[in-house]
């Protein structure tokens, strides 16, 4: 079983986000990128299947942000291969263009199972797994919390619905699965191990295929929401804030 895991780099929200002078994009000069959280789960899901059934896991990513580090980490965690796709037509393509690029690469390689995070925090013109399913004419199922290999040529997934309800679904391979969570937390790999892999392994590279598709939507304005001013902020030392909060709760009748 050949599994492709698609990894997308997204802005690190730990840092303050700055808007560029034109007011339509993020200022990228100091922007740090990290692996999208649900992609980390998609990778973990793939590695769980590798541990269980000996699947072949290849991690693929577009060449931008600190992607080498992310791909070497995927190798250190147990992926057999890591492929960097580039050079890119622009530094940080939208999800739509990214989907078309991945589709071009994957069409030539035809994995049995394609796993990707169900959505990324900076998705604007689409979500990768669904777009890929549509582009490659493969079934796609997103918002999953478990993927397991069932009878020959099928997988069983749990797709999440509100209230903790889940639909158990089967799909004949090849298929695209959009992972929300892996069945276990993403594994930890020591930095020393990543360093070792960085020295002993190389990343495969794949050229960016020519793609077409609808133009990206025109962005008029990218901005931070104005504070609604709804929350009354409790200031002062932590002790003062705690005391004020207790009296608010008393007045509201929350404390008996």
């Amino acid at each position, binding site marked *: 079983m050949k599994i492709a895991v698609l990894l997308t780099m997204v802005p690190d929200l730990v840092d303050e986000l700055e808007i560029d002078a034109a007011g339509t994009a993020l200022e990228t000069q100091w922007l740090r990128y990290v692996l999208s959280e649900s992609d980390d789960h998609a990778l973990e899901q793939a590695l769980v299947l590798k541990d269980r059934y000996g699947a072949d896991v290849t991690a693929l990513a577009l060449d931008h942000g600190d992607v080498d580090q992310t791909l070497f980490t995927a190798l250190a965690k147990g992926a057999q291969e890591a492929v960097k796709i580039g050079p890119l037509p622009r530094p940080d393509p939208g999800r739509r263009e990214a989907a078309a690029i991945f589709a071009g690469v994957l069409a030539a390689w035809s994995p049995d199972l394609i796993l990707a995070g169900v959505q990324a925090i900076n998705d604007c013109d689409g979500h990768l797994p669904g777009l890929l399913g549509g582009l490659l004419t493969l079934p796609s199922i997103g918002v999953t919390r478990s993927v397991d290999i069932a009878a020959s040529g099928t997988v069983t997934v749990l797709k999440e619905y509100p209230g903790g309800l889940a639909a158990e679904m089967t799909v004949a391979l090849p298929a695209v699965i959009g992972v929300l969570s892996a069945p276990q937390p993403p594994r930890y790999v020591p930095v020393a191990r990543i360093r070792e892999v960085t020295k002993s392994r190389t990343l495969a590279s794949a050229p960016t295929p020519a793609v077409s598709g609808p133009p990206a939507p025109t962005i008029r304005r990218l901005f931070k929401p104005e*504070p609604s001013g709804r929350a009354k902020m409790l200031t002062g030392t932590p002790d003062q804030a705690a005391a004020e909060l207790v009296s608010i709760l008393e007045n509201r009748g929350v404390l008996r």
Partner: protein
Amino acid sequence: MTTATTPDVWIYVEHLRGAVAPHTYELLGKGRELAAALGGRLIAVLPGHGSRPLAGTLGAADAVVLVEDERLASFSAEAHGAVLAALAAGGMPHLLLCGATSAGIDLAAHLAGALGAPMVVNARALAVDGGTVIATSQLCGGKLLCELEVAPGTIVTALAGAFPADAGMSTREPQVETAEAPEALRQIRTAVTRLLEPSAGDVDITRAGVLVAVGRGIQRKENLPLAEELATLLGGAVCASRPVIDQGWLPLSRQVGKSGLAVKPGLYLALGISGASEHVEGMKDAALIVAVNSDPQAPIFEVAHYGVVGDLFEVVPPLIEALKGRRAQAA
């Protein structure tokens, strides 16, 4: 790309276990307004099996297009997408609106890929400006908003709670048109085998009067007793955001949000939770929301009534002490 677009607005009608998803009425209400501004009709597209009774609840639409087939009984992007693709072949609407829900995001993205249609996700506002639809989408967990022009023929997902549901409710009997199930359903490779109910948790957080909610800011499982002590003093229970559940620190039955539970306690005390729309969806109706977050720009402060900008590990201990002191006085 499909054929030329019409001025119509289509709403994908999501349903689960014989009931229309509440979010669909929000889309219908907004769709009414947009269809009027665009000079088109509002069409509710309802793929299902034995779903005709649901059409009666969709009177806000000018027409309901009902497509019935046993392979459409449960949602899959493949099957329901095949229905919409077949309908779109007869003319793509100006706008197809889906919920940013478990089913909606799958369907919208799959269809956009299959049709080569443009897509815009996570809209929390939609308006028509001189004939152009303008969407305001939420990005980066609510830290950014993006205003963009929506081309004719675009598939849009809208956040739950973005529009009032009342405007989409109507007692009017809608006109129901039936359409043939598409041939493509014969090749469907996805099947829903069963629905799994959540396993009952040790506590039912939907019944708790006070909830102390912990997010990624709690950092480690070893820090949970801090929240538990606070919850006990307040006579409540501990619940959490998704990352805490994903780490296995608390069971799924304690998750609040889109894929967890919706709660409405008298007090919701959010500790180290950023306020992503998927979380807010599940707790925004709490009577009193208090947030403690070290980031003054955390979107949780947009929904909170009271906020403390600070390290939860510095704010919670004095809060616990104050509550203990109060209790000692009463005794």
